[in-house]
């Protein structure tokens, strides 16, 4: 036994007791009730219906590009976001490789995010302060963003949307429509949603990689 193991053995008996297993279960239950986790499928279906309805009402595509600076509330910026002109840009990015596969995936992600963030916006003002995206790995997102075990590949895209969000098709606290400031969506390597969370504080995504501003609704 070396000195590190010796220290550990001595300290093991002095570790303060933590919450009981039942306390943790209660905490997890409360959190589950507050947060919508799991598959995006049900919301995606509703959003698709809303999207079709919106298209029937107005043939003009709704393009919203948010170039406002990120709010400082709850966020200590640790990364300088690239200028809008340098963002990946969903099909015309300067950073991401301009291959067909990436374009399709980004468009797919953008479509889902735009639907979730904008489909129910009753307010004519853009409800989104900013949206940002980071490309990371499956391992880095384990246990976060309502991740589910299924999903293609090891690559994961995390999109965080901050604004006065009002998603009437979503299930928020008390199973009612979600109104809040923050929505995080997790996508697999194929661009399919594999998890999402609502509420809480905006997260510093720079811990997962380089963060880029996402111009919501801009697809080619």
């Amino acid at each position, binding site marked *: 036994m070396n000195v590190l193991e*010796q220290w550990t053995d001595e300290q093991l008996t002095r570790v303060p007791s*933590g*919450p009981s297993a039942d306390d*943790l279960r209660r905490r997890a239950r409360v959190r589950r009730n507050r947060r919508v986790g799991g598959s995006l499928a049900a919301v995606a279906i509703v959003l698709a219906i809303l999207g079709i309805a919106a298209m029937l009402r107005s043939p003009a595509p709704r393009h919203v590009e948010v170039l406002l600076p990120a709010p400082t509330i709850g966020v200590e910026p640790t990364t300088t976001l690239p200028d809008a002109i340098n963002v990946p840009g969903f099909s015309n990015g300067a950073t991401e490789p301009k291959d067909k596969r990436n374009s399709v995936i980004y468009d797919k992600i953008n479509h889902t995010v735009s639907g979730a963030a904008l489909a129910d916006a009753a307010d004519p003002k853009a409800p989104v302060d900013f949206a940002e995206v980071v490309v990371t790995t499956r391992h880095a997102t384990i246990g976060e963003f309502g991740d589910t075990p299924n999903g293609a590949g090891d690559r994961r895209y995390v999109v965080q949307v901050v604004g006065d969000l009002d998603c009437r098709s979503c299930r928020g606290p008390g199973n009612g429509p979600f109104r809040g400031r923050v929505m995080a969506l997790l996508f697999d390597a194929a661009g399919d949603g594999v998890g999402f969370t609502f509420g809480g504080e905006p997260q510093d995504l720079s811990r997962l990689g380089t963060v880029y501003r996402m111009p919501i609704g801009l697809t080619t």
Partner: protein
Amino acid sequence: MRVVAALDFDDWYAAQRPRVYLAMLALSGDADLAADVTDEAFTRAVANWNRVSAMESPGGWVQRVALNVARRRLRRGRTERRLLRTIGGPSDVSPPTGEIWDLVRELPERQRVAVVLRYVADLTEPEIAIAMDIARGTVASTLAAARERLAGVLVEEEIEEDVQ
């Protein structure tokens, strides 16, 4: 049938918590932060217990979650102390001090984390690979490099023990 799949959460939690806590304490030097991230990691474990218990290494998983949470909170520069502890008073455990820990703190981050996971969290090399999201071979070489830098102190202690 894998043994871990037969364990219920309560037993696993009771067995794993002290070492996860000590590993986080050794890495952060902050008892409150260590308790907080430990509780957070196990809360996520119980929330996903069906999936976690079927994993190759639930211990590696929970250490990885704790490391991720700790890194994020340390990077933010502030500790969100939302302690769930309803039992027990102030911690009797102090952040590790002494020559050996000074040397450990001087190690590069990857070596420091690997050493703590190996000797404090008592994880095997495959489990450390899962916890750190690196290849098993990299774990072995990282630990070897760390041992080389700590060799003087570690060997000395081991010799003393042998003499006893």
